[in-house]
């Protein structure tokens, strides 16, 4: 079973990964986006950590994720804010008010979160968006957290030959081909950090 502390650790690990990879995310966002994905997410996740520290009242898994999602929507400033914000918030909502959730409940809640992202952005897998990492990642959760991390990583790599059909990159048409999608890359980071906290190396 996973408690609120587990989800706090996930958010801390995600923030650290975003900080570590911020430059790379921004670099990926330069040829096909507006070169702010890393800095936007860094601002958002820094605010998430601050919010979790100042609001110890977020004492359930659902509350931790909802607070994190709300904070991302409020602070990111770019499209990744409402998209990641909705992912975490909807996942948190689906977890309800239980003090602890099972891995199966988390899997089901995450798939609701991913469905909400698809609905919000009107995108589908193949459109070269974060869904190309999230959808295979969450599908692989049935196997293990590590499998989910790996599948989302593969999904992000698979966006390279795709032509963008959503967001600013879609205006570039053919020129969006050949670049890895920054949103899919950060989504793979998020699921990778979930694997890191759920199945730490040596503790499997």
């Amino acid at each position, binding site marked *: 079973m996973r408690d609120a502390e587990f989800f706090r650790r996930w958010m801390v690990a995600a923030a650290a990964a975003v900080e570590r990879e911020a430059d790379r995310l921004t670099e990926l966002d330069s040829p096909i986006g507006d070169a*702010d994905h890393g800095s*936007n997410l860094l601002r958002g996740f820094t605010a998430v950590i601050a919010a979790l520290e100042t609001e110890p009242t977020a004492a359930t898994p659902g509350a931790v994720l909802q607070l994190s999602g*709300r904070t991302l*929507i*409020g602070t*990111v*400033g*770019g*499209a*990744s*804010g*409402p*998209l990641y*914000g*909705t992912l975490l*918030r*909807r996942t948190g909502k689906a977890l309800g008010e239980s003090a602890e959730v099972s891995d199966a409940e988390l899997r089901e809640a995450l798939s609701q979160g991913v469905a*909400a992202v698809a609905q*919000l*952005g009107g995108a589908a897998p193949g459109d070269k968006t974060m869904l190309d990492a999230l959808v295979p990642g969450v599908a692989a959760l049935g196997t293990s957290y590590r499998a989910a991390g790996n599948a989302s990583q593969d999904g992000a790599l698979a966006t390279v030959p795709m032509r963008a059909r959503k*967001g*600013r990159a879609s205006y570039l048409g053919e020129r969006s081909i050949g670049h890895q999608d920054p949103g899919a890359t950060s989504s793979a980071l998020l699921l990778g950090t979930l694997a890191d906290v759920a199945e730490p190396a040596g503790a499997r």
Partner: protein
Amino acid sequence: MVGIVLVSHSARVAEAVAELARELAAGGPVAPLAAAGGTAVGGLGTSAERILTAAREVDRGAGVALLADLGSSVLTVKALLMEDELPPGSLLLDAPFVEGAVAAVVTASTGAPLAAVAASAADAYTYRKV
């Protein structure tokens, strides 16, 4: 009257379109209108906080029509609607930004209900220029 919120990536775009719409609707009472452009720190982008503040400011109880320009502007309004954080009766208009703003403000200023404001803004899509 229905309140209108204009959400743009740019504070200057939001304010300028608000000014244009307000001028074109003038001649009687003009519907409450607020611009929510740019990020909280004055950069290009979207501020959820500015949108919420603007929506509360123009809410007279008859509904709030929000019009957004691109990407994160649209997604942030949709995310706030999904969370029920905007005033009751808030609606994202499906309309082009400038033309939709003029249509929405002119229509709202006649005292028309939210559905009519939304229909009038959406109708701006049918105006072909060539």
